């Protein structure tokens, strides 16, 4: 029995990847929840909007590499994020002006706006395929590992190695910074408070002199920042493939709904709930039990609850269970 090795094993293969993946989902889920809370519709173009922002980061990374611009040991993509965010916000505002605002002014029911967002999703997908194509792209450069398995083994003398990828640390640190700034903005500034007020009671917000145009504008700006950063972090950590971003919409929506849709704190935590559930349920525990059980009890099979092919089924099941038993989300607390 060897608990230290067992813990390192879990840390390396489940906890660290889940924290990373959870952060990426959390950014997407906050995006969904903000749009739902303030603009009052489920935005089905979420995955593709994240993809759209990331596309600019990928293209700009290639360009910066070609002119020899880099951030040293950090990925060049981090340098491109501000420009990518700018392009993303620009695209979102154009879409809003020519598509969403028409239905908003007409006061269309939310389901109609959701259907409109499906249309936006298809158009965005097509634009992405025209500009960059559907293929898989890696755009990570700089130092790949902060700690390599072999180095860790040498340092500690353990059997199990712990690998810390630079993208994991970047993801977690950037997420914490971005989300903290966003919550500070929503809770402590006058504009943030006015956005929460608008989300809570639109008519009274208008009577108090809050300008709905400004609220919508700032919502799209925050959404653009979250979508681009979330998308770039995911792309750096895995790879950039438009279809995968579209697929990610399911876990992202699941995270937003688990957290109680309209509640950004819930969406943030919901991202981790979904990520941990997906990774814990699809991890093969054979080696782990090998460490903690006596040799005689060592399992023969992989001890994997579900094949990784079923990871979307997990988000989907969580989504259904939450909607059946706790439709307002598993976290108590105030809405945006």
């Amino acid at each position: 029995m060897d608990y230290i090795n067992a813990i390192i094993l879990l840390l390396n293969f489940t906890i660290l990847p889940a924290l990373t993946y959870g952060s990426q989902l959390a950014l997407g889920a906050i995006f969904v929840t903000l749009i739902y809370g303030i603009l009052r519709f489920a935005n089905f173009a979420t995955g593709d909007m994240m993809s759209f922002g990331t596309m600019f980061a990928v293209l700009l990374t290639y360009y910066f590499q070609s002119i020899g611009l880099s951030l040293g040991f950090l990925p060049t993509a981090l340098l491109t994020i501000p420009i990518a965010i700018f392009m993303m916000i620009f695209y979102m505002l154009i879409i809003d002006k020519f598509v969403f605002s028409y239905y908003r002014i007409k006061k269309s029911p939310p389901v109609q706006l959701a259907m409109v967002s499906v249309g936006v999703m298809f158009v965005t997908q097509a634009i992405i395929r025209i500009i960059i194509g559907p293929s898989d792209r890696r755009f990570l450069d700089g130092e790949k590992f902060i700690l390599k398995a072999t180095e860790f083994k040498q340092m500690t003398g353990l059997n199990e190695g712990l690998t810390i990828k630079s993208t994991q640390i970047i993801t977690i640190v950037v997420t914490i910074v971005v989300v903290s700034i966003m919550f500070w903005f929503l809770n402590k500034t006058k504009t943030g408070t006015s956005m929460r007020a608008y989300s809570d009671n639109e008519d009274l917000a208008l009577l108090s002199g809050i300008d709905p145009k400004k609220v919508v504008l700032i919502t799209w700006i925050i959404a653009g920042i979250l979508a681009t950063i979330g998308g770039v972090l995911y792309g750096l950590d895995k790879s950039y493939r438009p279809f995968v971003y579209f697929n990610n919409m399911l876990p992202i929506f699941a995270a937003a709904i688990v957290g109680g849709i309209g509640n950004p704190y819930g969406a943030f935590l919901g991202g981790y709930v979904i990520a941990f559930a997906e990774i814990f349920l699809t991890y093969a525990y054979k080696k782990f039990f090998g460490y903690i059980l006596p040799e005689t009890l060592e399992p023969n099979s992989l001890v994997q609850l579900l094949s990784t092919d079923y990871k979307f089924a997990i988000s989907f099941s969580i989504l259904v269970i939450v909607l059946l038993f706790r439709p307002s989300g598993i976290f108590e607390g105030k809405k945006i």
Partner: protein
Amino acid sequence: MAFFEGNKMTAGYGDGPDIITSCSLNVNRGEIVAILGPNGAGKSTAMKSLLGLLKLKSGYVKINDEDISKLSPQDRVKKGISFVPQTKNVFAELTVQENLEIGAFLREDDIQSVISEIYELFPILSEKKSQIVGELSGGQRQQVALGRALMIKPSVLMLDEPTAGVSPIVMDELFEHIIKIKKTNVAVIMVEQNAKQALSISDRGYVLVTGQNKFEGSGEDLLNDPEVRRSFLGV
């Protein structure tokens, strides 16, 4: 010449029939005016017309002798007209303090002194300032709603059934607050169901029937008018 007046207002919803026809109301600073009448008489509609939530078909609304008939509700708020709707009149998910801050959204100057004035007027809010408004009692929420409306330091305060759904004790308390507000030189205009109590604190009252002025006079006169008593006060 009254400070705030709606003169011969005719209005309805969309293309529907006129709900109020040639209805005139006015109020001066430091005065409470009650609008009374049976259900469907157009009390709330008259108030919405004064606020600009409905477009007038004819007539005008003037404040301080300035015609504001064409202004949007938001622009009327800037002129110092504050409104407390009957329902959904607070931000239930925000704290008491945040509700007051949003009330002063249009003010650029330091709002801390106004907030402390509101806390002086409604001491209970001061104790609960960081509590979520949705967790407060009905009477306290009504006080938050009044406080929010007072944050722009209005010259006209319009209240749509401020005492709907609260207990008689809370109702008396709210009326006392409304009298205090009036003493700060605000023109108060309110629609009320509790006609007797409303008239007893009002300087003047209007009784509307089918969208038209039926009776008007001082609170006392209306209370003592046999026809008003028989038809609307149930005595």
